[in-house]
Every structure is written in C-alpha cells, then in structure tokens.
C-alpha cells in the first residue's frame, strides 16, 4: 500500500464475502445487465399509475384553481406545504451521507452514498412540485426569478424567506445533481466497457463522457469531490435552515421560534435516513448486495436515526417549555392547547408525531434492534409517518386558530385532489427510483474498490501482522 491508511481490526469489515476488484464490478453490474424481473415491472407500473393519478390531480388544480383543495381562510398552507417540507427533509440524507460523512472520513458511506444521493435528487424533485403548483397560476412560476423584465423592471423581494427558498432549493438540487453525476462518470465507464449490446455501448458511452481512468483525471476528480463535499456540507445545513425561516421569520405562534433552524435540520436528517433505510433494506435484498450494504451499514444509519430523533425530541420539549415559560398566552395556547392536548381538534397529530419520532426510535439504543432488518424497516416507515405529522402539526395547528376567534376555521381535511397530488409525488419518486435501480450502478463501484484493500474482510484478516508492529516499523514499511 502506498499510503498510511490503517484500519483497526476492531472495526467491522465494510465489504464482506472475500471480494477482489473484478468481483465487485460483477456484483454491482449484475442487476444492470440482467433483464428486469417481474417484481420490478409490477413495482414500476404501480409507481407510474400513481404518477398518472398525480398528474390528473394537478391537471384539475391547474384548470379549476386552488379551490380544488380544501384550504380555507386561515389554513392557507395545508397538505401541499406539509408535503413540500416533508420531501425536502427526506432529500437531506443523500448529501449528508456523501458530503458530511466524506469530510468525517466515514468509510461506510461508500456502500450507500450512490443510492442515497439518487434518493435526494428525486425527493427534491418531488418537493419542488408543491410550492410551484401552490402558486395557482403555475404558468407564471418564472416570476420568482429575478430577471430584467418589462414590468418596471419589477424585482422579486430579496428580503423574503420565500425567495431565499427558491435559491436554496434550486441550488441544492443543482449541486446535488452535479455531485452525483460526477461520481457516476467512472462507474458508467465501467458499465460501458463491459457492455455487450450496441445500444448499451452507445448509451453508457454517452453517459460516461469518454472517461478513461487516467491518473490525472482521478486526481482532479478527487479534488472536485472533496471541494464539492466541502461546499455541500454548509449547503445541506442551509437548505433546511432556510425552509425553517419560512416559518420562523413570521409572527405566528408556533412558528415564531429561534430553535427552528437546528430543529429542522435534525428532523431532516432523521427523516432522510429513515427513507434511505426503507430503500436500502429492500435494494440490498433484491439485488443481492448484502456484501456491500452490510448489517454494519444498517446499524450505523440506525445510530444516526436515534441521535437525530432524540435531538428532535429535545426540540419538542423545549418548545413546550418555552410555551409556558414565555408566559405569552398565544404561545401557550398553541403549544399547550392546540398541540399537546390530545382532545383538541388536531391533538391526534401531535401525539402521533411524539409516538413515531421520539418514543419509538428509542428502541435503537439496543444493538440487537439496530441490526434487525424487520425492526429497521418498520421503524423507518414509522419515522417517516411521524415526520409527516411533525410538519402537519407545525403548519396546521398554528394556522387553524389565529389571533381573531371570529376567523377560526372549520376543521381542515384534504380533498381528493390534494391527496392525489401527494400520491402523485410518490409515483414520481418511485418511478425515478425504479429506473435508477435498474439502469444505474446502485453502489459506487470505484469507491468500493478504493476502500476494499483497507476494509474488506480478506484484507482485514491479513492485518494481524500490522497490529503488532512497532510504529517505526509500520512507517518504514508503509509510508512512501
């Protein structure tokens, strides 16, 4: 080995099954080169059907107006913005895994980063639909962009958090896409060079941009990945911070709190990892990638889930405390009556949130539970339900009773087309994810190879010698 990279034997191997480089290529390319299974078609068509239903729901909304939704005079944001925040939150795990864990040199990210980044991109695509169609006159959506126009020029309001959101989400989408695609180039080249059919050679040849694997290119690629990771790290934190500003800069009780940014970011990581878990538990099984996405990977992500879940729990309790401690009666009413009181109209959503986000993830303090696939899958779904409740609680319970009792609204429940729009984004998400899983290398081939010699199990077995070496001897042997 050419560099001083030492991995303790105490750490679990990240790649199991005594792989060599060629075996890694084979394992990860196999699903791409095989014909799609029946199960894949079934899943794909269900996703497309959901997407079509969503398209029809949106068609009705665009044709007949926002009146197709059950929003009313105080609840101006309902399911749509709840879904927006929920999807954006889910879209945080991918970049967190690929950027922050790269900077923290967490080797286990290599097994899951590709799929998590793909998930991020698709989730942000879904998120973007909601504010765009909430505009009503969607054909004027480009008005949110600052460009010299014939109306003055009349500019957008740069002091508004809603405009910050436009910049944050579009930047986040662009940078995540670039990061993901630049990592995909070498892997597309691998698939291209193995391709048997002409069509594959053509398509993967185009997608790989003529990648050769030249040392100079790798050197630049490494530099690019590192800087993009460095840029994405504050970016990923900024995006949900700015989403939380949409609420926190207002004067609505329940929104007007300074803990929103860290609380939203923790919640985003929480829900994002839960979605990664839901997908990974299935992907590793269906594509036989258990050697690359090991129980160790699952356990590491469950640790993140219990950590961020507890941070979110602390935030909920802090809010309740401040609702009482501030002695502000509007705050107190929102937190203690509209939310924490189980028998208030929306009390069920608050306690649903508490049960799913704070109480149930505590099961992951037990190692056995962290490494149990059924528990992991069940919990990951539960956490995402809980995080949806959280956004619903924040938006709806703060809006349905405002300062003026005469304008308290009737009970808000969504219309068919509101639900249809939400289901449609599931369709979009899973349509994209099914296509990704079939045609893209779901695990980063080159990155797995670059950690194979230090963290693979065969290599680990050969490390006994190094464990017993004196430092001087080790440096002499391994440092160039």
């Amino acid at each position, binding site marked *: 080995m*050419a560099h001083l990279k030492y991995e303790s034997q105490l750490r679990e191997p990240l790649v199991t099954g005594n792989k060599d480089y060629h075996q890694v290529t084979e394992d990860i390319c196999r699903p791409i080169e095989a014909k799609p299974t029946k199960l894949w078609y079934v899943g794909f068509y269900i996703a497309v059907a959901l997407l079509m239903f969503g398209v029809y729901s949106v068609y009705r909304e665009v044709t007949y107006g926002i009146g197709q939704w059950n929003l009313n005079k105080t609840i101006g944001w309902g399911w749509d913005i709840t879904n927006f925040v929920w999807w954006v939150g889910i879209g945080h795990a991918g970049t967190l895994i690929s950027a922050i864990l790269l900077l923290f040199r967490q080797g286990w990210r290599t097994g899951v980063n590709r799929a998590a980044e793909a998930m991020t991109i698709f989730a942000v695509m879904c998120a973007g639909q909601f504010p765009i169609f909430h505009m009503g006159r969607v054909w004027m959506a480009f008005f949110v962009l600052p460009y010299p126009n014939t109306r003055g020029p009349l500019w957008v309001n740069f002091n508004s958090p809603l405009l910050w959101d436009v910049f944050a989400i579009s930047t986040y989408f662009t940078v995540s896409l670039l990061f993901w695609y630049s990592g995909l180039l070498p892997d597309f080249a691998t698939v291209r060079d193995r391709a048997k059919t002409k069509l594959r050679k053509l398509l993967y040849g185009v997608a790989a941009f003529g990648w050769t694997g030249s040392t100079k290119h790798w050197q630049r690629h490494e530099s690019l990945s590192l800087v993009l990771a460095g840029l994405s790290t504050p970016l990923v934190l900024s995006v949900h911070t700015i989403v939380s500003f949409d609420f926190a800069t207002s004067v609505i009780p329940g929104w007007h709190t300074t803990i929103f940014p860290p609380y939203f970011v923790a919640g985003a990581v929480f829900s994002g990892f839960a979605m990664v878990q839901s997908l990974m538990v299935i992907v590793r099984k269906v594509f036989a990638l258990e050697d690359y996405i090991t129980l160790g990977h699952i356990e590491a992500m469950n640790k993140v889930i219990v950590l961020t879940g507890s941070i979110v729990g602390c935030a909920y309790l802090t809010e309740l405390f401040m609702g009482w401690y501030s002695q502000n009666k509007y705050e107190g009413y929102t937190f203690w009556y509209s939310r924490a009181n189980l028998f208030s109209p929306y009390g069920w959503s608050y306690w649903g949130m508490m049960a799913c986000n704070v109480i149930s993830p505590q099961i992951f303090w037990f190692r056995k539970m962290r490494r149990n696939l059924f528990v992991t899958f069940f919990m990951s779904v539960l956490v995402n339900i809980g995080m949806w409740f959280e956004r619903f609680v924040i938006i709806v319970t703060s809006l349905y009773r405002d300062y003026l009792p005469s304008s308290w609204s009737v009970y808000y429940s969504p219309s068919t087309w509101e639900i249809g729009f939400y289901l449609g984004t599931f369709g979009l998400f899973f349509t994209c994810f099914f296509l990704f899983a079939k045609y893209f290398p779901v695990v980063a081939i080159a990155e797995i190879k670059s950690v194979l010699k230090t963290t693979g199990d065969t290599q680990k077995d050969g490390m006994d010698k190094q464990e017993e070496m004196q430092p001087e001897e080790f440096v002499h042997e391994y440092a*160039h």
Partner: protein
Amino acid sequence: MAKKKFVVGCFDDEAVLFPAVKKVRTAGYKIHDVYTPFPVHGLDHAMGLRETSLHTAGFIYGITGTTTALSCISWIFTKDWPLNIGGKPHFALPAWIPITFELTVLFAAVGMVLTFCYLCQLAPFVKKHHFHARATDDLFVMVIECTAKTNEADLQGFLNSIGAKEVNVQEAEADWWFGRYDQEQQLIRDTKVEVA
C-alpha cells in the same frame, strides 16, 4: 493530432504498480499515463504529476458568486427600485446573506464541474482510445510513449520483469475525437505514426 506508438503494461495489483512506476521512471522512460479503475492515492506523486489547482478555480468561481449576488441585490434594492418594506433600511445586508451564500455555492460548484470537464476533456459523444477494456474494471494499465530511441522489445521485457501481467504495443490516437462507443471509428485525419 497524429497517432503515436505506445508500449502498454497491465498490472493487477496496486502494490506491484507502485514500485513498477518508480522503476520505469528511474529507467528514463516517459510514462504517458496510468489508467486505474479507482483513484489510487499517491499514484500522482509517484508519477511526478503536479498538484491540480482545480480547487483554486473553485475559490475564484465562489467569490464571483458572492460578488454577483451582493452587487446585484444592492443595486436593485438601493438604486434601481428601492422598495419600502416596513420602513426598514434599503441596504438590508443580513437579509441578503442566505441568497449570497447560495449563489457562492452554486457558482463554485457549477464552475468547478465545467472546468473539470474541460480540463479532462469529458463530454457526451467524446471518444478516446482505451488501451485496455479492463482498465475500468480491475487492471492498472501503464502506458509508455515510444520515442525514436525506444527499443520496444526491451521495454516489453522490462515491464514483464517488474510485474506486468500483460504487455503489448499499440498505435493509438492520444487525443479525443467525436464518436460513439457502439461504432468502430477511424480518424480520417493523418494516420501516420509520429515518433517524438
């Protein structure tokens, strides 16, 4: 661009590759490139490549984004159309930080990726000569450019002696051209082999 003659040696272990690179360089041969399936850390130093300054370019793109955001927003809100928002100052710097930050990141990321693609000459429909199809799978392919003085047979023997598993001589275009990977393409330009 003309074709050149190369001697190609394929290695299957990076632990063998490193000393081999050193020996080839000490023997005075000019390494055209080493193609690897993953980034082999330290190989660029072993080959004597200089550090990339891509990150410096990234920094320049980043501050371009910062100044673009700040200058545009302050011009718009103080000169072009000063909006009165609740009587607050027109020059509201703290409120502009989020957009300034986002544009910094956006410019840096987009600029760096485009620069990366330009420097490495990567784009759709760009085709290059691949010395070995398994260079993106499990082989480390060392390519040495032949000069007028190079004795190919000697060099091949030398590569074998330092651990190459597969050795051959190829005449190839060193540059990129527009092409598709599903078609065999010959350059219509000069095909004479050029010797440096």
